[in-house]
Structure formats: structure tokens, C-alpha cells
């Protein structure tokens, strides 16, 4: 079956439509007089932004889109030509390069100048520098929402109070000023209730990775599943509908005993069940995915699908505690958790999803994710007895994707798992 033959499932079509519509709204915002907030994915305040009638433009999503459409390489070179170091996060450079080259959305029309930069930096310092850089160009109001890091592996009342105070005294008043709309907490409650509904279904979907065979791929497929909730749609009816559809499709797949859908159709054999840590590579996304499904490797759980919220750990946006729940949401995002917490979460995945092992895709760009991953891997190997493997790629810089290297690594990793199984079969000792 070729990619062209694939029948797209209704949820895929729905998401495609939602994204296209959102880009159309964004690129027509100026003409229609609608205001736009630029903000980041982890810890985004979509429900709040929507209370003010603002549209939400997410630079990482633009970078991902450009990565998948093979445009980011040029954008990165453009940014480097303008003095940005080859050493820093390529999302930032893809964004700055895109701005320098006309700031075109996937629909070919220019993205609007934001009316406000909402800098909620959760889990990564680079966000702070990123918006300082972007601010230079737009000269628009910039709101900073600092989210303290869970250094000791817990959310303290002081952290929560700090975020709520910032929301009340700085974020909300500035959004009121920028939008001209008065804040209505009941409207926020409605959005939060809508978020929670969709979040329930997302968690249900992600947890089907525990089944054998797994009806989903929780990494390559997972990045599509998190799309609406991580971006501009959390808190909307569209998101509720999307996740309902998705859930129904997966229910049907489970009933039929089918595996996940890949670009080349339904995955038939599932030889290896993996947990993946780290973001995917976007410039060779399909190629990387193929290296997995060709070998019968399915990803049953991943941490990247938790960067925009760790809903599977129980968190839900809560209309009864609107601002506190926004605070807890920001504080709980995956990269805002300390390393021991990240290790514990991965250990839980390896065990509960009955995975054969852990694969780390270490991203050159991203210190937030990557600094410490080797230690994480070794700790997990020790704790679970399951083998780990390490590949190195980048997010959107095609120069750092070496297909041959990655393929070699994966092949020897799969051999290692085979060998472990053989030993277990002959000795009766299971890892």
C-alpha cells in the first residue's frame, strides 16, 4: 500500500481542517480586526487567551510545520547568516529565519504581527531568550509568566501562589488592555470544563498503548493525537469533537484487533514495544517512523506527548479552581519536572506498558530535554533491567539527521532485544 492509497480516518481529516482553518483565521486576522497572541506550547494558557477573543499563534508549531515541509533548513541558515550561533535551539532560528523570509504560514499567506507576546516559559529557559529576540522585531507588549521549576520534585504552595498572582496582577490586566475585553471568570470556567472533557479522551487514547497489540503508536502517531490539546484548540468544542472521533476510531481498531495506522497502512506485526523519551525529528519524520514500523517496533508510551501537560498522571483543568488549575497545569508539564521525576515516570511507563526497552532520541538543540538523558538511561536500565538505546538527531535542522547512523543504532538495538529474549527463553529469567 502506498501513502497515497491510505484512506484518511475521519479524525485525521478533522484535525487537518482545524489546523487549516486556524491558519486561515491567523492570516486574515489583521483584515478582520482580530487580535493575536504569540505564545508557547508547554504551559500555554489557551483557555485564558480565548477569554479575550485573541487568536493563538504558536512559534514552535510553525517551526514544526516548516520542518515537515522541508523549509526549516533554509530558515535556520538565514538566522545563522544574521548572526545566530549554530549551537543554539533550532526552533528559535527556524522562527527567526521564517520571520526574515516573509513569515509565511502553510497557506502561503503572511502570519500577522502579534498584538501581544505571552511568554509563559515552562520547562525551558530558551523561551525567555526567544521572546526577547522576537520582541526586538515586533515591539509589542510582552507579558512574562514565570513558572518555577519543580527542583525538589513537587509543586509547593509558594509556586502556585506566585503563578496565580502573576495571572491576576499582570497577565490578565495586560490581556484586558491589549484586547479591550473585560475578563470574565465564568467564561474561563466554561473553557476549562471543555478542556477537561477532551483531556479525558486523550488520556484514554494514550493509555491504549498498554494493550497487546497496541492500537496506537504513542510517539509518531502520538504527536498527531496531542496536536489539538497542545495547541490552539484546548477548551474548544472542536477539540472535544476531535477526541471523541479519535476515541471511536481506536475503539473500533481494538475491536478488530488492529495495530496503529502508519503512512503505509495499518501496522501488521508488532515485534518490539518501546518507550521513547525526547522530541521527534521533524525534517525526516516519515523516514524515522518507517525505520520503526518496518522492523515491527511500536512505541507504546512517550514523554514528548507530555510536554504540553501530564494528563495521564491525573491532572485535569478544573473549572472550580480556574487560576490555580492553570498554575498546576504549567507547573506539571513534563520538562518542568526534575530529573528524578522524569526517571520515575519513564520507569512507570516501561513497567505499566510492558515495554521491551527505552529509546532516547536526544535532540542536539534542546538542553532542557537532553542534558541528563544519558544518566536517565543508565538509571532506568539499572532499575528495570530493560535495555536502553540512544540516538541523536535534531528537531528541525536537517544537517543533524544522519539516516544511516540512526538506522544502524536501531538495528543493533532491536538485535539486543532479540538476544535478551533468547536468553530469557533459555534461562527462564525475564528482564
Amino acid at each position, binding site marked *: 500500500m502506498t501513502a497515497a492509497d491510505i484512506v484518511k480516518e475521519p479524525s485525521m481529516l478533522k484535525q487537518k481542517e482545524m489546523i487549516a482553518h486556524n491558519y486561515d483565521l491567523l492570516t486574515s486576522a489583521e483584515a478582520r480586526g482580530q487580535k493575536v497572541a504569540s505564545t508557547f506550547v508547554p504551559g500555554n494558557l489557551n483557555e485564558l487567551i480565548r477569554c479575550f477573543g485573541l487568536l493563538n499563534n504558536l512559534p514552535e508549531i510553525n517551526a514544526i510545520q516548516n520542518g515537515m515541509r522541508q523549509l526549516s533548513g533554509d530558515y535556520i541558515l538565514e538566522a545563522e547568516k544574521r548572526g545566530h550561533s549554530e549551537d*543554539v535551539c533550532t526552533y528559535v532560528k527556524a522562527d527567526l529565519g521564517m520571520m526574515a523570509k516573509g513569515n509565511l504560514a502553510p497557506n502561503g499567506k503572511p502570519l500577522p504581527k502579534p498584538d501581544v507576546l505571552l511568554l509563559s516559559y515552562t520547562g525551558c529557559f*530558551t523561551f525567555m531568550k526567544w521572546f*526577547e529576540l522576537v520582541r526586538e522585531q515586533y515591539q509589542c507588549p510582552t507579558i512574562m509568566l514565570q513558572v518555577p521549576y519543580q527542583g525538589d520534585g513537587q509543586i*509547593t504552595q509558594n509556586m502556585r501562589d506566585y503563578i496565580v498572582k502573576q495571572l491576576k496582577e499582570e497577565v490578565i490586566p495586560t490581556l484586558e488592555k491589549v484586547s479591550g475585553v473585560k475578563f470574565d471568570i465564568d467564561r474561563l470556567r466554561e473553557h476549562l470544563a471543555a478542556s477537561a472533557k477532551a483531556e479525558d479522551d486523550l488520556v484514554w487514547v494514550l493509555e491504549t498503548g498498554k494493550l497487546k497489540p497496541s492500537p496506537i503508536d504513542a510517539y509518531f502517531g502520538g504527536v498527531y493525537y496531542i496536536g489539538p490539546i497542545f495547541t490552539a484548540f484546548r477548551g474548544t468544542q472542536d477539540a472535544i469533537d476531535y477526541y471523541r472521533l479519535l476515541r471511536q476510531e481506536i475503539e473500533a481498531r481494538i475491536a478488530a484487533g488492529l495495530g496503529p495506522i502508519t503512512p503505509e497502512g495499518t501496522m501488521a506485526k508488532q515485534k518490539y514495544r518501546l518507550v521513547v523519551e525526547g522530541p521527534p525529528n521533524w525534517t525526516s519524520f516519515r523516514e524515522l517512523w518507517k525505520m520503526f514500523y518496518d522492523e515491527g517496533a511500536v512505541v507504546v508510551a512517550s514523554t514528548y506527548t507530555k510536554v504540553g501537560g501530564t494528563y495521564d498522571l491525573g491532572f485535569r483543568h478544573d473549572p472550580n479552581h480556574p487560576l490555580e488549575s492553570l498554575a498546576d497545569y504549567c507547573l506539571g508539564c513534563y520538562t518542568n519536572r*526534575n530529573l528524578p521525576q522524569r526517571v520515575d515516570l519513564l520507569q512507570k511507563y516501561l513497567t505499566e506498558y510492558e515495554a521491551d526497552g527505552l529509546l532516547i532520541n536526544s535532540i542536539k538543540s534542546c538542553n532542557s530535554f537532553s542534558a541528563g538523558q544519558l544518566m536517565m538511561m543508565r538509571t532506568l536500565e539499572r532499575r528495570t533491567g530493560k535495555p536502553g538505546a540512544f540516538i541523536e538527531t535534531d528537531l528541525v535542522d536537517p544537517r543533524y539527521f544522519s539516516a544511516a547512523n540512526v538506522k544502524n543504532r536501531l538495528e543493533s538495538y532491536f538485535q539486543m532485544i532479540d538476544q535478551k529474549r533468547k536468553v530469557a527463553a533459555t534461562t527462564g529469567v525475564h528482564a
Partner: protein
Amino acid sequence: MNTRQTLVERCSALFEDLSFGASRAWKDAQPGRKVVAYMPVYVPRELIHAAGMLPLGILGAGESLEVIHGDAYYQSYICRIPRSTLELGITGRLDFVEGFLFPSICDVIRNLSGIWKLQFPDVYVRYFDVPQNYVDGIGGSYYRRELEELKEGLEHLAGRLITPEALRASITLYNENRRLIAGLYALRTERPWQVPSSELYLVVRAGMVLPVEDHNQLLKDYHAAAVEEELPIRDKSRIVLSGVFCEQPPLSLIKAIEMAGCYIVDDDFMLITRWLLQDVPLDGDPLQNLVDAFLHHSAETSAKYQPEAKLKGQYLVDAVKGTKAEGVIFAAPSFCDPALLERPMLQTKLDATLVPHIGFKYAENSGQMQPVREQAGTFADSIKLWSNP
């Protein structure tokens, strides 16, 4: 006798001693003493001191230590300071340290705090978060509570309470330390030939491992010696060195810049010693005074958010003006996000005020200084050319 040479030799020995003999000696001098390490760029050392413990600044392992274990923990595209620091830990060189503070400078140091927790479970490890919001009732309240938590943690570790009197006494000593260092920096700005930067660096760096009382004396002695002994004036260009606030360049790099015809008249080495820009007041609640000083009178660096767009990068322009510098050399550790993301914004600001600049990257173990000498030399020459048309 405390000649310049003997003082610098002493500092040099402290700098080279990766077993931290001086800090160990302090600890061994009395039973029950404890040591709390910290990384760049800022922690309130006054609190550690007021608990009767020794604050110990860890700035990586420099160029001489061969990193064997650390490389197994870090990918090649991550700066060097976390791996060499881990090397110090794994090889037992920090086995006398009971606490370790990791300030919020970047994701690498942030994550290192977690590695330390996993690797050294018996050490009191705290990620020291600071506010990026400088409003008293918002960032200030948050920071106050963070300091209270840190204080409680340190009290628990020390086995004694930090009284307001003890904290005031510590603030007094660190106020003096900051004044003495500011005095040396001012002397260097005024007469850079009298205070070579490679010496000033070592003298200030000694404060990372010595008790503050000893360091204050050392600073006084060096100042006196530096004023006394006249050194020849050379025809060099005055430059500000920017970006060296975390992983340290090898000493040979500082020397190479100086030998290439530059007087370094300002820098961002060991910002902790110059983070608070004024004396912390002694009256009233000393903990609150530390909060206020951080919020309203602290140095700027790329790890800090600048809420005012038009003030972004102004600190460097001010440093250039304040020291009558003729140019800026950006030196940043390879893969250092804070320094390398900040640099283009600083460059824009300098370009707007026609301040010339060059930039390069280094690692704490960079061996080849020839390119640096050439670049800095050409830069110094071109400054001369522009200023004497």
C-alpha cells in the same frame, strides 16, 4: 611579605588545587563544620555563612583535569562545565561537601541538580530558583518564601538556626567583600596596567574557595600591593569581556587577550561577587533586605529577563561607557544557550551606539590560544586605527 607576586602565587595555587585543600582545611579545623557548594551565577552566600558553613564556589574543573566519567553522562553538544563538575563529584574531589546549590541560570545546570540528587543521594541538593518578576508583591513575595525554604534547609543541614544577628554579621562581611572587589575593579578600570586581568581573576576566584574573612584580607593585601608596585603603561585597547559568567575560559585565554594588546576593563566573571550592586542594609529584617537587594539592586546578565524592551542589553552599553572601553569581546562557552542567544541582542545594541565588537567561543579546556591571540590582536589594532585616524 605580601608582595603582588606572593599573593598571586597563593591564588594560583588555590585555583589549581582541584581537591580544594583550602576548603577542606577550613572544614577540618573544627569538628562539625560543613561545606555547601554552589554553581554560577548567584546564590545568597550570606545564608550559608550565617549557618556557620562554608560556601564553596564550583566553576567546573578547568583545563587540567582529564574528564573520564563526565563524558559518559553528557552528549558532545552540551557545554563542558556540567561534565567536569560531575567528574569532580565522581572522583571524590567533592566528598567533603554536604550541600550543593544549583542556581537557575539555564537548563543544563537545572538538570544537573537532578543528576546530583540521583548520583549523590546523601547530599542536600537544592535547585535555587529566583524570580524573573521584579515586583515586590509578586516576584518579591515568591523569592522571600524561597529564601525562607532555603534557610530552613540550611538550618537543618547545619543543625542550628540562622538568627537575624548572625545573618547581619554575614551580610556585613559580604558587603565588605563586594566593596573590596568593586574597589579592585575600579582600580583596574582607572589604571588597567596596574591590575592585570589574569591576576585580578585569580584574586577574585580565590574567594570561591576561601572563607570570606580570609578573602577580604587577601583583597586588601592585593589592593595595597597593586597600588604600591608601579607597572609599565602599555599602549593597549580597552575592552569589555562579555559572556564568561558560567563555564570559565582557561586562564591562558585571559592572558592571550591581554598579550594581544587588550586591557580588559570590565568582565562578567564570577558575577556572584558583584551581583548585588549596593550594600545590603543591616537595619530591619536582614532576610527581606536580601530579597530587596536582589529585586532592585542586582546585576544584569543573560540569565535574567529584562522586562523593558528598550533596556535590553543596556547593561553592556553602560559597562562600555562606565569604563571608557573602546570595544567588546564576546567570549562564550560552546553550546551555552544563555550567552549565545543573548549575544545578537547585545550586538544590536552595540551597533546602535557604534561600539566595535568581536566574538568567539571557547571551552574550559581549549588548548589552542593562537586563534584567540590573532583575533584579539587584530581587534585591538583596528580599534587603534579607528580611534587615531
